[in-house]
């Protein structure tokens, strides 16, 4: 093959890879939209509960302080409850905004989990499931996987684990230093057989280099760690 021919072949291959990447990106974007809707649907009750708690307690404060000569103490506890409920609402709203923001490259598994945690927890409550996500500092768990695909796979795994039929679910992410190259392993476990990951999500994940290993009580996701 001539040098020109070789360059042309490289160009075609690069173009093909770019087309593949765009296709994955497009499919991931569609699936992400569906996942967002599912989170919003499942967490709506909890979000409204928080808002309701805040409003009802504020009404108590207003009514009690409106009484002539009413002591401030009669309303203090309710004001505190209202404040705490507004904090809950704030956390939910921030998480909802994070859902809609574009994903940052490179994706950090820990940061994604932390930003979505309040909503995922609220979504789990819809099925009476207690979700605990291990707290850790972000930074060391960056992955080379496309950021959009990363958060899609994480959310899909957590939604599957917090579907009906369990009482509790746990999510734990760790950097496996012994693996070569190093990988970020996320284990989503629950006290019952988790439903399988959605086929379309699993296909996008596989194409993006994420390994998915289902087990009787857990889904293990292995992301390639970002270089450096």
């Amino acid at each position, binding site marked *: 093959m001539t040098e020109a021919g070789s360059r042309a072949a490289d160009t075609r291959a690069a173009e093909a890879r770019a087309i593949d990447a765009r296709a994955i990106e497009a499919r991931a974007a569609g699936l992400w939209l569906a996942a967002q809707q599912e989170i919003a*649907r499942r967490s*709506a*009750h909890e979000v*409204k*509960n*928080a*808002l*309701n*708690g*805040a*409003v*009802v*307690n504020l*009404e*108590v404060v*207003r*009514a*009690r302080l409106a009484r002539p000569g009413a002591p401030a103490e009669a309303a203090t506890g*309710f004001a505190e*409850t209202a404040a*705490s*409920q507004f904090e809950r609402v704030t956390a939910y709203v921030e998480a909802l905004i994070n859902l809609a923001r574009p994903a940052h490259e490179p994706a950090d598994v820990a940061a994604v989990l932390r930003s979505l945690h309040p909503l995922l927890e609220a979504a789990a409550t*819809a099925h*009476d499931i207690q979700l605990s996500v291990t707290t850790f500092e972000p930074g060391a768990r960056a992955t080379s996987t496309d950021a959009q695909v990363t958060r899609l796979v994480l959310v899909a795994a957590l939604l599957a684990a917090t579907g009906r039929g369990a009482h509790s679910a746990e999510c734990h992410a760790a950097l496996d230093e012994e693996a070569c190259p190093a990988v970020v392993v996320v284990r989503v476990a629950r006290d019952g057989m988790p439903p399988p990951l959605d086929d379309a999500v699993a296909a996008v994940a596989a194409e993006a280099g994420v390994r998915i290993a289902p087990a009787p009580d857990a889904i293990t996701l292995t992301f390639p760690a970002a270089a450096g």
Partner: protein
Amino acid sequence: MKHGKILIADDEAAITAGLSAILSDEGYEVDVATDGETALERLSADGYGVILADLKMPKVDGLALLKELAGREIPTECIIITGQATVDSAVAAMRQGAYDYIEKPLNAEKLNRLKALIPKALEKFAVQQKNRELASKLEGLTHYGELTGQSEAMREVYKLIDAVAPSSASVLILGESGTGKELVARAVHQKSERAKGPFFALNCAALPKEILENELFGHEKGAFTGSTNEKPGAFEMASGGTIFLDEVAEMPPDIQVKLLRALETRMVRRLGGKREIPVDIRIVAATNRDLQKALADGDLREDLYYRLAVVEIYLPPLRERVGDLQLLANEFLHRFSQQNGKKIQGFSDDAWEWILSYHWPGNVRDLKNAVERAVVLSRGPVIEAIDVTPRHLRTSGETPGSVTIPVGSSMADARRQLVLRTFASTAGDAARAAKVLGISGDELRAELASLLSPNGTRAAHGDGHRRGDDAEDDDSAAPRRPHPAVGKSAGAKGKPKKR
């Protein structure tokens, strides 16, 4: 404090605390349940006029709670609190009997609406509570446990059950077949302190001697050929409860001896066994036999009789409680119409004539079967006389039985009996009855109409008249107490006859 208790069922502590404060400030007594299951427990244990229930709750959600409230017939008015996304469910809740629903979040406007709704819901609850109390009082006049009847005779039975049930005394129920002896036995059990214990019914006439003995006392392994396992008897199994021995006078004499011993010592020994097993049993026995005769013939041991008949309850035959016929017939009609999915409005006048004049030899069971058959076979909205007439009386052309008119009866009573019996004997054929009576069809119809009118019915079947019927029924197969005060029975059993 305003009248009315409110239960808030929600898993959100912040909401329940706020709502409690708002409603308490309004003067209501407020309690909180953090899930649907707890709410149900509290509602079952205590009376709440209103429950504010979140549609989404752990364990039992708002819709399931409404279903349970309806299923368990727990009186309360339910206001559902729901998120906007579940308005469809709220509408479903309304269909299931919720009083109203309010959407979250409960801002000032919605809280004001809630405050306005609660007094109305409490008022509805209070009105319905009064209705329930009235219905319960009315029910108490006509029903007792599973027994139905408002006649003086049945009220006496209820009083006797009330008096005897709390004691541990043995009870002997006397009554013809089909009068409801087992229902009385169950009522005695249910009203006693043994109600939580087992109720064990055995028909002594239905079982061969060996099996009856085995059923009563049980057996040890190897007691007889084929007894590969030990088996406790009714006395052991019903310990702490009540044994009902139906048709006790049919019990073979040697088992009567064992029964007597068990009653005296409160100990039983299994067949093939050596050890005495203590039992804590109350015996309720029943018989449809003429006890005077059964004792005289040696069919029932006198010592056993005195042991069983610490208290006797005499259950009158249906012909002695004519005042209950309409109540019973209507109740059976309602029950069997529902069971068979039929919309039957009632009985025709002719059918009532038949029901009120027939002497129902099989008693309540006989009436029940007749109404069930009529409902099943009926094609129209009304049950006709032919539907409730037993087949053998429809086709046999049987002549009417005699009419006994006690001395002291009025001419009106005598005429009434003659008209009713003749009419019944023709299976409701007014033309034939008129011909037999020698009166015109119009006269007969006028006579029947006056008997069917409320006053006429009372006059014909009220307590005053029943005494006359009793005298006439002396030739019936009614069981008699073996006391000298009670008249002797001729015990004649004949073909079904009309009153």
